[in-house]
């Protein structure tokens, strides 16, 4: 079946199987920043924005994304470059596998909260797991990027 969606501002038509997830379709079509981690809706590595809100692309069936706007890290590259630098400066980026999902979530966090507390940041990012960093460097980078709490 065919599905149409806008990915990072460009209209796209993809041929998909009814069982395909949005993650499968995005990766097959070159959006390799979107990572397949747990594939069970837990780790957050596959996070993308669907109509501006973060969702797990490993859980969203491709047919469900038909007619919607999808944003991956590639689509917010300019707005989030500074955050990527902060992640590197704080030593928060080790294997890097979880970083694209985290970057998308921090972008959404910035849109939703003007001055989040550390508790609000932790609660918002509860679904973004990182097995390397221990989260401390990420938290420092997020706070510096948002200009809060340091």
């Amino acid at each position, binding site marked *: *079946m065919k599905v149409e969606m806008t990915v990072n501002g460009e209209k796209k038509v993809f041929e998909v*199987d*009814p*069982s395909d*997830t949005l993650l499968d379709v995005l990766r097959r079509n070159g959006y390799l920043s979107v990572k397949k981690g747990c594939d*069970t*809706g837990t780790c*957050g590595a596959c*996070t993308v924005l*669907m109509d501006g*809100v*973060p*969702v*797990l692309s*490993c*859980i*969203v*069936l491709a*047919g*469900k994304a*038909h007619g919607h706007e999808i944003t991956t890290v590639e689509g917010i590259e300019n707005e989030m470059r500074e955050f990527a630098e902060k992640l590197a400066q704080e030593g928060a980026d080790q294997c890097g596998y979880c970083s694209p999902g985290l970057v998308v*979530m921090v972008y*959404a966090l910035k849109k939703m909260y003007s001055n989040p507390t550390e508790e609000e940041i932790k*609660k*918002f990012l*509860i*679904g*973004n797991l990182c097995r390397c960093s221990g989260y401390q460097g990420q938290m420092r980078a997020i706070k510096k990027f948002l200009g809060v709490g340091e």
Partner: protein
Amino acid sequence: MRIKNYVRPHTLEEAYRIISENERAVVLGGGSFLRLSFKEIDTVVDLQDVGLDFIEEKEDAVDIGSMVTLGELERNDVLKKLYRGYIPRFVGIIWSVQLRNIATVGGTIFPKWGFSDFITGLLALNVDVHLYKSGKMKLEDFLKTKIGKDILVKISIKKERRETSFQFLRNSLYDFSLLNLSLSCKKGKDFKLAVGARPGVAKPAKKTVEFLNSVDEPFKHLKRATGILLSEIEFGDDFRASGEYRKHLAGVLFKRALEEVLNYEG
């Protein structure tokens, strides 16, 4: 999970016709749990184009369409005021932000998931469910009624002045509840109490409520009320916790909830 066909009907009539004509058709809410199943599905019926994504405030109730996501409940201004934000508060600690933007009201209630925090939370309020074929019924009646092929259209939450409490215990915040419990009352009377993740689907505690409603100072009768609660609700074992442990937890959560709704300072 293997799906042969994926359809997005534009009306409820069309959606119902598809599921009633095809035994192996499945209605898709958010899809969070369907995606994780190992089922072979003939036809997935995605309801997103049917017009069930509304939250409408009426004079005596708030109607919520079955395709509204838990994330939308969390962000909705009407619900932030209703029961002093009770619904966004307990919904906002279910799993992750990303999953709450996918999981829907209908997809959570209709399958009667045992682990659901959402169903337990709603049982502290007066909630009606509206089904396309079976019509309107109270949420507690829906939970014990065998429903065949049908579609959850909306839920109606009655607007009242109630003190509310939602209690749970999890191994970590980012996990399913080992047990959850909801309680509400109107100035120390007219209680509503439910226990969920038992691990079976949430169940109202009617005898305990009868007792609480019959005494003047319910907190003074906590021990007796707890005894009634623990004898009327069944607690089972699963890989998360034993029935015995859940039974002990129920007493603890009940005490905390009663303190909260009565604003007990003793």
